[in-house]
């Protein structure tokens, strides 16, 4: 009976997804799972059972990039991998994916399932997922209006890990809140981190409850000699107790993505992937879905470069602003929406260290989105002397109009850095898909 229902659900889901895409209402990445999840709760487990190894990535920032890196490395080593790649990271999104990828007999023929799982969802589906590795990227303040408090998010993740005591757990060594998770669990633990010289780039929360971490923690992977280049890419050395190797160019932007690469390297090393395959995969990586993807666009006879840098919480916004001043960015566009996926509360704009723009003030700043007025207000209070530079700042609520104008203002060969919240990013992508060869995200 379960088998029959599974097969019927697969057929239903596939048909529905195709219909959603045909009508142009989106990627159809969650609705089928949402409809079937409550009716047939065993579907999840039944489908997942067929995948021998599952890896879960959770934490507030960097899930998608870490996941994409792991998928690339494993695929480059010849494995057959399934993953929820579109940021559909609630249980309904994962279920939709499984239904979509199952063959018409309800079977999934894969070696690995790599799932990014939203923090609050993780404890609810941890036992069904039964991961062999759990990666915790970091615990920044994120979507606080969803869970209320960051310690609650920490507890969700800890509870999830406790439900899978056999999983190896990979943790961010530099994030005190993530380190505290390690103190509360009895799983086998591995750590990744940056050389301490680079730690002032990040505003981690909380404090360490133990001392001499450097000496206590032996199983760790550390990045040193990190260099940030003009195009936001990095180069760095990876050091563990056993070996050292160099990543010559990693195109995901900024220092924070070095963390994501370390998490993926550690995960795949534990799975026995050879170093040369790992290095090749990291160096050949193209940034995922809005996380630093870029390209060229024609505006009349001119060609402008653009980079998409998703912002979704104060830590990420602060890091991005710092990075942009380091590369002396001239053209910037910030788009703040307040839909559910962005967080309805825009107070976080005041926790972001926008004041860092005073180190290098961009020449053109375009503000857009449903809460554009809030962002403009934030800039007024962040700049040392707003009145003297207010002609550099423009506000246009309509995203397409704002984008068009921002591109018109940028000089040929310059880069427009676009900083959208999540749903704003979807709007920007839709616009750019029309104008350039940016891939549709559900492909």
């Amino acid at each position: 009976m379960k088998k029959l229902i599974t097969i019927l659900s697969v057929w239903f889901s596939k048909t529905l997804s195709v219909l959603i895409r045909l009508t142009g209402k989106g990627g159809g990445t969650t609705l089928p799972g949402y409809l079937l999840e409550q009716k047939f709760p065993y579907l999840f487990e039944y489908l997942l059972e067929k995948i021998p190894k599952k890896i879960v990535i959770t934490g507030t920032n960097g899930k998608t990039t870490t996941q994409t890196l792991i998928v690339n490395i494993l695929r480059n080593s010849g494995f057959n991998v399934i993953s929820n790649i579109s940021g559909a990271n609630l249980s309904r999104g994962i279920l939709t994916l499984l239904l979509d990828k199952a063959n018409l007999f309800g079977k999934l023929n894969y070696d690995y399932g790599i799932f990014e799982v939203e923090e609050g969802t993780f404890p609810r589906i941890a036992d069904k997922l039964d991961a062999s590795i759990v990666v915790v990227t970091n615990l920044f303040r994120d979507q606080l209006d969803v869970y209320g408090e960051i310690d609650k998010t920490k507890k969700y993740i800890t509870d999830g890990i406790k439900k899978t005591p056999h999983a190896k757990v990979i943790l961010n060594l530099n994030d005190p809140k993530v380190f505290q998770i390690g103190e509360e669990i009895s799983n086998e633990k591995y750590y990744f981190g940056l050389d301490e010289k680079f730690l002032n780039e990040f505003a981690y929360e909380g404090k360490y409850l133990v001392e001499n971490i450097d000496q206590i923690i032996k199983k760790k992977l550390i990045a040193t000699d990190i260099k940030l280049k003009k195009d936001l890419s990095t180069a760095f050395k990876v050091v563990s107790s056993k070996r050292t190797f160099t990543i010559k160019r990693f195109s995901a932007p900024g220092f924070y993505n070095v963390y994501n690469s370390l998490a993926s390297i550690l995960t795949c090393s534990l799975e026995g992937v050879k170093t040369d395959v790992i290095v090749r995969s990291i160096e050949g990586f193209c940034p995922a879905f809005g996380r630093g993807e870029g390209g060229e666009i024609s505006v009349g006879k001119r060609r402008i470069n653009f980079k998409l840098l998703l912002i979704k919480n104060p830590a990420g916004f602060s890091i991005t602003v710092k990075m942009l001043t380091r590369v002396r960015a001239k053209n910037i566009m910030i788009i703040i929406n307040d839909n559910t996926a962005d967080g309805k509360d825009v107070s976080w704009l005041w926790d972001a260290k926008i004041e860092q723009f005073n180190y290098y003030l961009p020449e053109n700043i375009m503000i857009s989105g449903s809460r554009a007025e809030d962002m403009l207000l934030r800039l007024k209070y962040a700049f040392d002397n707003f009145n003297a530079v207010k002609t550099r700042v423009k506000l246009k609520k309509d995203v397409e109009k704002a984008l068009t104008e921002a591109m018109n203002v940028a000089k040929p060969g310059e880069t427009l850095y676009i900083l959208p919240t999540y749903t704003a990013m979807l709007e920007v992508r839709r616009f750019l898909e029309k104008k350039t060869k940016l891939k549709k995200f559900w492909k």
Partner: protein
Amino acid sequence: MKEKMMLTIGHLYPEKMNIYGDIGNIIALKKRSEWRGFAVNILNISEKNMLKPGIIDIYFMGGGQDQDQIEVYKDLIQNKKKVLQRDIKDGAVVLAICGGYQLLGEYFTMGDGRRAEGLRIVPIETIAPSTKVAQRCIGNIITNLQPTDEIARSGKSTLVGFENHSGRTRFKSDKLIPLGDVLVGTGDNENAKHEGVRFKNIFGTYMHGPFLPKNPHIADEIIKLAMERKYKNKVKLKKLDDTIEWNAHNAVINKFSK
């Protein structure tokens, strides 16, 4: 030459009690004072710091997570209560948001039953029905100042913000005057239809984060009250160009008004 006028802001527990962008209020007070030529001194007051009377002109305390709130309450009552009571009696201005607001009252009983004793400066009590996210009051909120409030008489009478709290606050005295009447959102509790409190020179509210940036009339009232107390003179603040502030304020009203 006339000496530059100066304000001292005491930021209580800036590390533990700063969630949801509460720092925005300090930024607003500082900038709006500086734009008028006043000097601003910000003192961060944590558990390790001693509090001396007569130094702080404006006290600010934001919201925090339950555990941090318990630790902060303890330190306040054991080490800082007397000075704070004395300064408040003397007319010091207080802006207390969320956890800070609850602390001014008699007690706060949390969703898991833990009880934190308050300062008992304002006759209010706060009880959270549970720890469930679904039972938190979360969302955009719009209120109307009391018609008797001088700030309202000067023109703009609305307040806008975002609330996110588990506790329901009840007034224990009929004479207590709320800061605003709720137009959109929950406010102090589901039944009362009021939000926040005005008591002496105290402003208490659940509107967190950029409360003062988006409500410049309140920011200026706080600066004015602090200046008048400190320099024992009527103060008329220089008018600023607040177009950007009111645009942000009105955008909330236009988007979320019923």
